[in-house]
């Protein structure tokens, strides 16, 4: 189950250029995102240590880890809000660049633009990308229909419930048809009922649109419920401790013995004491 081969290849800590050569020598069209030797220092504080992994096209990966394990830093590196001290992130074999690639992010905090209507929020990223108007119209209509937002399209975010607002943010992210969709504990603040509802919503969108998703959570049950593969992070300096493939049929059931077994396994791995 654990796939440690990738890590072994990189233990010599080669620079980005040499790893690129190697990657090009073994082209794998199925790999959408490739993280190589990602390392980050804040001054002398070593936060991320040599993280490497691949994500396949259309894969749903969950990232879990103990509290304070540098998840946020990890994410900010993936979205290019921070730049890494060493190592890099490649999308389709190219160094990731938000201007070139389609990255989408669902933040923990509510992040709908309060001065834009639901529809305009959905259009925001697409307009920044300067897509053709008919493409934008088509995509936005599709998302509105999929999320059942027809009645709310001209409302402003603060007029909506918390779950509706979060759905808009998720819809906005999927509408981008991103190369990589990153979600940072998007349901951290919500109660269980809303959470289940939105988890299903995300799975539905993912299945229909085939987006590549990295979903960060501290909730192991949530990770097992959603992921095809789980990356377990270690404490600082953070690295990928283990990868767990979740090969369960959908819709998944929390009381399925296999589900429980994987959940327990991951829980065991996260413990650092």
């Amino acid at each position, binding site marked *: 189950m654990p796939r440690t081969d990738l890590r072994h290849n990189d233990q010599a800590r080669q620079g980005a250029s040499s790893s690129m050569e190697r990657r090009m020598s073994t082209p794998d069209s199925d790999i959408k995102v490739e993280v190589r030797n990602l390392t980050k220092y804040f001054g002398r504080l070593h936060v991320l240590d040599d993280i490497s992994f691949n994500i396949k096209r259309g894969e749903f990966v969950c990232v879990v880890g103990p509290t304070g394990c540098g998840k946020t830093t990890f994410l900010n590196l993936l979205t290019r809000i921070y730049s890494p001290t060493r190592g890099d992130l490649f999308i389709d074999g190219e160094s990731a660049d938000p201007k070139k690639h389609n990255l989408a*992010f669902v*933040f923990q905090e509510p992040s709908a*633009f309060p001065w834009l209507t639901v529809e305009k929020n959905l259009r925001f990223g697409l307009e*920044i990308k300067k897509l053709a108007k008919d493409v934008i119209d088509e995509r936005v209509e599709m998302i509105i229909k999929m999320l059942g937002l027809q009645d709310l399209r001209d409302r402003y975010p603060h007029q909506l419930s918390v779950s509706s607002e979060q759905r808009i943010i998720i819809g906005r992210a999927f509408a981008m048809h991103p190369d990589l969709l990153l979600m940072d504990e998007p349901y951290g603040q919500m109660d269980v009922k809303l959470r289940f509802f939105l988890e299903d919503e995300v799975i539905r969108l993912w299945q229909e649109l085939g987006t590549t998703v990295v979903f960060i959570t501290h909730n192991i049950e949530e990770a097992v419920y959603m992921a095809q593969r789980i990356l377990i992070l270690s404490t600082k300096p953070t690295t990928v401790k283990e990868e767990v493939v979740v090969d369960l049929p959908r819709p998944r059931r929390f009381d399925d013995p296999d589900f429980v077994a994987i959940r327990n396994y991951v829980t065991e791995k996260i413990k650092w004491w």
Partner: protein
Amino acid sequence: MTQPPSTARLSEAERVALVKRQKKRDKRTATALSVLGILGFLLLWQAIAASGLLSERFLASPLEIVGLFFVKLVDPSPDGAVLGVNILSSLTVALTGFGLAIVIGIPLGLLMGWYRAFDSFMRPVFEIIRPIPPVSWIPLTIVWLGIDLKAKAFIVFFAAFVPCLINAYTGIRQTNPVLINVAKTCGASNFTIFWKVGCPSAMTMVFAGIRVALGNSWATLVAAEMLAADSGLGYMIIMGRQFARADIVILGIAVIGVIGTLFVALLNVVENRVLGWKKQ
């Protein structure tokens, strides 16, 4: 989720409607109270004037002021200009200064708030200029700009410029970093983020600044017209003082007040259009 049990069962649409109704009712009550307040003030004023507590030379009654208003529409004494000319003249000065303050102050504040380098470049100069009372520019203004409209507008400009700039600056500085990150991850350039995220975020503060600026513009008008004038509401007040005509002074104050109120109302309309998303 601390809704009372009765509303918990309502659908979202019903809930929104209920809140709307309540807001409407609150608004009606507030309007009624405001009208009562104004009426009460006028009555008290009339009562004090009628009681003879203060000599009528010092305090004309509201009714006399209304009467004087109509007289002043056609009678140029004692200041030499009829009311319409005075109003037009003051409006030209105040709106020129105020308009320039908006056109220059707000973009400058937004740019300073957004671009660090620009901030470092401009801030020291601004910090020196900021505490200078607008009136103290008068002697230099005469030498630099003469005594025409542009000199008076300059003084008003200074009074209105500072709040415009500060509020735009503070407003854009308070942009929610999460929203900036959303735009960043969409691949937006710094300028696009400034334009599409920073500027709209700052608008609430910007409008608060414009409101202060509008008040300041009117308030500085009298000082600006002290510089040199042959008409204007401030000039009318100064002349009322010159000839110990308290009624002329009060009329001037009242007209300035009413026009100021009209401007605030107009500003509210504009604000409701721009910041309508907040109210609905």
